[in-house]
Structure formats: C-alpha cells, structure tokens
C-alpha cells in the first residue's frame, strides 16, 4: 500500500467523519411540526403518526412536537412555516393542491419558492361514487347522463379549489360534458348527501370510501394503478378514461434549508417510509401512502401549481 492510497484513505475517513460530525449537530433540540388543522383531522393524524418515526431516525434523542395552528383551511399554518427560520427546527404539513391553489384565489404571503420540499407521504386518489340504488353505476352510464342534458348531473364534493374540484374539471374536459358543482364544506357531508340521494354523483377520495362500500357504487379510481386500500376498484385508465388526480399530503420546511440538515431530514423520511410499522400505522388510519422525496416532491408541486393555474385561468371558481 503506497503513501498515496493511505493519504486518500485517511482523507476519506477524515472527510466522512467530519461530515458525520456536521450532520450529528442536527438535531440539537426539539423540532416543531406545524399542522395547519385542528387536532384529530386527517392531516393532524398523519403528522402525529409520523412524529415518533422521525424522532427515531433523526436520532440524538430529539423530539418532534406537533403544533396545531388551525385556520383558513391550513393557510395560517403553512404561512407560519414559510416565515420560520430555515434551521430545520420548524417543519410543517403541506397539502396539495390546496396550498398552491390558495396562491391563486387568495392573497397568500408565500409561493412555491417559499419552501424546501421534504417528502410527500400520502397520495389519496379521487373516486367517483353514486348512491347504491342509482341507475348510474358505470362510467358509460354516467357520461351518457351528463352529455344528454348539460348540468343535469349534480356533483357533491368537498369544496371549490381543491382536488375534488380539479378532478371534476378534468372529468368535464375528458367527457366533454357539463356538471353542476355542489360544494359541501367537507367530504363527509357531501358523502351523506349522496347516500341520501340528494345529488347524482359524488367526488371524494378513496380513503373516504373504504368504510362505505356497501352504501355506495364506486365507478372508478383516479390513480395509475389500483389502490391497496380497495384493490377491486378499477382505475379510470383501465376503463379507457384518462383521469389521474388526488389529494396529496406531505411535509415541507422553510426555503433555504442548509444542505446537511435537508439531507438528514430526507434520509429520516426515507427510512420512516421504508419502516413496515409506519406503513401499517398509516394503513390503520386509512392513509394511502406514496413517497415523493425532495426534488421529486418539488416537481410534483410544480405540476399541481400548473394544473391549478390552468383551471383558475379557464374556469375561475370565484
């Protein structure tokens, strides 16, 4: 072994130990995880479920503390994250397409560049549902009904400017038909109105339908592949309708996070996602998982912003 190779080896060891030393600095204290919704909501449960796993994989006996900052459908919380110090001690939950759509339809104090995108963890695809006793129980029948008389099909959904609404816009484009939007405040009231037969169809997410399979017809799911939560629901693609859409939930930090801190966080999210216990906990709380880490998440966000912009420009909802 020559001097040169020893020198390189030493340099390597030194640099690696130095970089671990730098990494080991973070986290030195507790990490605040800001949730823009009240305790007990879907996003909050996700945050509380992931917290202990992040603590485990970040090491240093750190603690991840959930801070609920509810209000303005998550905008107050996400604004607080955008304005926090980019030191890795403030991270927050992030909902798509809502967070990006709010930069269009409201005055928001943040934009797509205000964040360091860490990990998108949940991807909850949209589904089309009709009441169990409805004649419309296939996509063909739905399209036929919608095309026969414009606006005759009433659609219950959560709210305008959310994933349900964007899905409907895509559906409207693909099927070349007009639908009447009936935005209830939340998916559960929309689903109940549908079960009571007060509307023709509903757009909700697959996680919201699994407990109601006996009460509702599910016409299809807007994902590339079938969902593990309900693998008997055919995708729209299988049925020849090109529709992919859903609600995304993930985690962001303020923009300009130091590289070593970001690397450590991404690593912790990856390890958490690979942990079978975590996957099981997420399934138990009805969250369909799909990981998009770092730059993948960033481009996912750009995609969602593009979609929101396109719909906002062609069909502004307010």
């Amino acid at each position, binding site marked *: 072994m020559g001097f040169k190779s020893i020198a390189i080896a030493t340099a390597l060891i030194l640099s690696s130990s130095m970089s671990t030393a730098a990494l080991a600095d973070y986290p030195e204290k507790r990490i605040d995880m800001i949730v823009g919704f*009240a*305790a007990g909501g879907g996003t909050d449960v996700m945050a509380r479920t992931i917290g202990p796993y992040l603590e485990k994989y970040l090491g240093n006996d750190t603690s991840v503390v959930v801070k609920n900052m509810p209000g303005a459908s998550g905008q107050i919380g996400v604004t607080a994250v955008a304005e926090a110090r980019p030191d890795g001690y403030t991270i927050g939950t992030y909902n798509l397409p809502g967070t990006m759509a709010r930069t269009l339809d409201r005055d928001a104090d943040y934009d797509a560049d205000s964040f360091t995108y860490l990990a998108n963890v949940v991807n909850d695809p949209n589904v089309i549902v009709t009441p169990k006793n409805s004649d419309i129980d296939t996509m063909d029948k739905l399209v036929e009904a919608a095309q026969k008389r414009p606006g005759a099909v009433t659609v219950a959904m959560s709210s305008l400017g959310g994933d349900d609404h964007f899905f409907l816009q895509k559906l409207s484009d693909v099927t070349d038909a007009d639908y009447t939007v009936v935005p209830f405040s939340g998916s559960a009231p929309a689903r109940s*109105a549908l079960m009571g*037969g007060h509307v023709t169809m509903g757009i909700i997410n697959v996680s919201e339908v699994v407990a109601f399979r006996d009460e509702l017809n599910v016409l299809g799911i807007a994902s590339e592949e079938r969902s593990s939560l309900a693998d008997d629901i055919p995708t729209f693609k299988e049925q020849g309708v090109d529709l992919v859409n859903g609600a995304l939930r993930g985690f962001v930090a303020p923009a300009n996070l130091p590289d070593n801190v970001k690397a450590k966080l991404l690593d912790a999210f990856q390890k958490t996602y690979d942990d079978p216990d975590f996957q099981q906990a997420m399934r138990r709380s009805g969250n369909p998982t799909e990981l998009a880490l770092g730059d993948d998440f960033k481009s996912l966000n750009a995609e969602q912003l593009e979609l929101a912009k396109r719909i906002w420009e062609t069909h502004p909802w307010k």
Partner: protein
Amino acid sequence: MYGNLIDALPSVLSLGNLLAVVIGVVAGICVGALPGLSATMAISVLIPFTFGMDPLVALGMMAGIYNGAMYGGSIPAVLLRIPGTPAAVATSFDGYPMAQQGRGGYALQVAVVSSALGGIVSALVLMLLAPPLAKVTLLFGPTEIFWVAVFGMSAIVFLLGGDVLKGLISAAFGVFVSLVGADTITGAERYTFGHLELLDGINIVVLLVGLYALPPAIGLLEEVRDFDTENTGRLNTTSIWKAIPGMLKYWKTWVRSSIIGVFVGILPGAGGSMAAFLSYNEARRASKNPEEWGKGEPEGVAASETSNNADTAAALIPALTLGIPGTAVAAVMLGGLLIHGLQPGPMLFRDNPEIVFGFMWQFLFAAVLLIFLGGALATNSFAQVLRLPRPLLGAIIISLVFIGVYSINGRMFDVYLMLGFGLIGYFMDKLKFPLPPVVLGLILGGFAEQNLRLALRIGGGDWGILASSPTAKILIGMILLVVLMPLFSRLRRSRKANRVAG
C-alpha cells in the same frame, strides 16, 4: 347487535375506564361552569394527549366532559346570568330570575336532574337506535336542513320579548356576524379585511363570551349592588333526593325536550343551543301560564337543560355512522376517534364493536353520574364562589375569559375580537337590546344560507326544489303552524273582546 352491547360492558366497568368517565364528568362540569372555557376546547386540548392512551380511557373522558359541560354551563347561567356554554343561554332565562328570588339552589337541582335525564335518554337512543336514526339523518339534504334552520329562526319571534324592533335588530346583527369569513360555496372573503384569522368565520364562543360574560363582569366591578347579593348568595337548598319528588310534575317537559334534543342532535350542524331554544319555546307554548316564563319558572330551566343534554349522545349518531358530526363537540370527538384509527362509518360498528359500544355505555354512565357529582359540586363548591367579594369575582371571570378565548386557537386576535364584542354587549345591555336573538342569528344564519344555496344549486336555480320532497313539505307546514298560530289566537281573542264590548 344488542349482543355486542352486552359484550362491551365488562371492559367499560374496569376501574381505569370507569375512573376516566368520573374524571371527565368532573372536568366537564368545571369547564362548562367557567365562562370562556367550553367542552369543544377541553376535548381539543385533551386529544393530543390521548394519542398514547387506551381508546376507552380517552373516549370515556370525552363522554364525561361532554355531558358534564352541558350541565356545567347552567351553573353560571343560573347564578350570574353568564351562560357557561352557548347551549346554556336558554337556561338563564328562568334560572337567573330564580336565583334572584333566592331559589338558585332549586334551579341548579332542576338543571342537574333534567340534564341527567336528557343525557340518559340520549345515550339509550344512541345505543338502541343509531342505525335507523342515521337513515333519518340521510333524509335531510340541503333543502330540508334549510327549512330546519328557518324553523329555528321562527323561534326568534318568541325570543324578541318586549321590543320587537330591538329584537329584530339583534337578530340581524347575529346574522351579519355569521356572514364574516370565507363564503362557504365559493370561498370569496367577506368582511375579513385581509385577516386570515377571520376566514373561518367568528367562533360562537368568542361572540358568546364577549356579549354575555364581559358586560356582567364589568358590572360586578362598576356597581357593587348591581347583583343582588342578599338573595343569590343564599341558595336555600335541600337534599337533592328530597327535591326530586317535587320535580316529577315536569315529566311532560322532560319527555318533549328529550325528543327535541335527540332530533336536533341527529341533524348535522345545529347543536345544543338550537335544541335548548326550541325546547324552551315548545315548553312555554304548552304551558298553562306562559306569562310566568322568564320570571323564574323552573320548568323553563328543565326544558332547556333536558334538551341540551339530550343532544349530546344523539349528535354522535351521524358522527359515528356517517362521519358528519351533529355539533361542534361531536366534531372534535370524531377527531379523538380518528386519532385511534377508528374511522366513522358502518364498518366501525362491525370492526370495533367493543370500543363503539363501550363508548355508548360510557355516555350512559356519564349521564347517571351527573346527578351524583353535579348536585354536590354545584351546591357545595361553585355556589360558594358567590360569596367572593364582587370585584374579585369580576376580575376572576375576566381573566378566565381571556385564557379561554386565547386557547381556542392559541392567538390574541380572538381575544381582541372578544373585547370588541364585549363593548357591543355592554352597550346592548345598557340600551336594553336582547342578546339571545344574536346567538340564534349567528348559529342559524350561516346554516340557512349555506343550505339554501346548496339546495338551489342542486335544483339548477329552480326555487321549486325547496318544496319538492315530502320531508320539506312537512317542515314547511310546521313552520306555518308555528308562525300563524299566535296570530290566529290573537285574532280570536280580539274578536271575542269585540263581541263582549259590542
């Protein structure tokens, strides 16, 4: 299904789970009794801590808090005319005059017995009739819910009291407050002036505390004799067990108010305050001496307190079966279920029977416990508060109110808003504007607006949709009856008077 009910009993009776209910009831009474603190808030504060708890311990505490707070709210409503919770506003109508007459102890006893009975009925309904009643909930689409809201609003007519114009102005102010925030359909901002804090609308607790708690608290400070210490200080109580036989004559009100409470509970979004207002009205209408109401009629306290507790477990029927909470508290409790991986829906009853049915038992126990814990707590501890020097009591209430309002969302904005309402309430008080129409206007205004607009969207803009379903037609008939009946009887009386005169 009833087999499941029995199977769930043993685990509920374990020491830890039972103790959770007891702690919950006591905590609930305290929270309800302290102006500014509400059951919604107490449960939201509790939820994060329950993440690591056994589900039945967590749920037992929540059931206890909910029942306890619904009764607890009546304590300051009776003793100080400050409703501890929105649902206790109607309790103060007759409870406070009773306290002024030195019958505050009896008012509280009527309140606790009525609360317990309402709670028991509600829990039994939840246990035995949840699935069929969930089908009733489904009958109520936006059109029908709109008519329910109108029915509730027609009750405002009766809350107007002396000056009709002032009453209507108050109601209009309440409806105006309900407009603040993001439009529920399009999300357009209304009267938010760029404040994100206003986007979700104005929390009922902020308004209630500002209007109801601040002015009397200021009153305590500015004029010592404003509150009749001579009488309210003494509660004149006998043992609750001796008082119960004398209350049996309220059985009709108990039955009627229980039914109203359960019915309002299974409708999404209305809540305990609407139940209390409606049942107060119905009880007064059925009474032989309606002119005595508002001057210290114990039956008024019974009506209001029965129905706001009858609303509790019933509100969980749509929450557990459909995921749509009947009240704000049920909404928070739903969060408590979700955090334990319990997803609402028909599957919940099949997959987790021991927890769901255990939870129902806990509601029943919580209601029964009210008599034992509520009676003793109210008369022995809270009533002693009245012996405090008035300025001290006023200062305590004001600081409690600040803490309570701040902790709803953890922000000062709500406190400033509450102070604003306090100022409005202070002048309304001095100018003799009635407060209850404001509360009803806020609760029902937004409710009516949203559902009317949803109904019209479903109908494609055709107003005919509002009378299209049988349920809607029945509701319209009921509203006409309620509005026109007093007119007819007045007409008949004046005609009779004419004939006598002629």
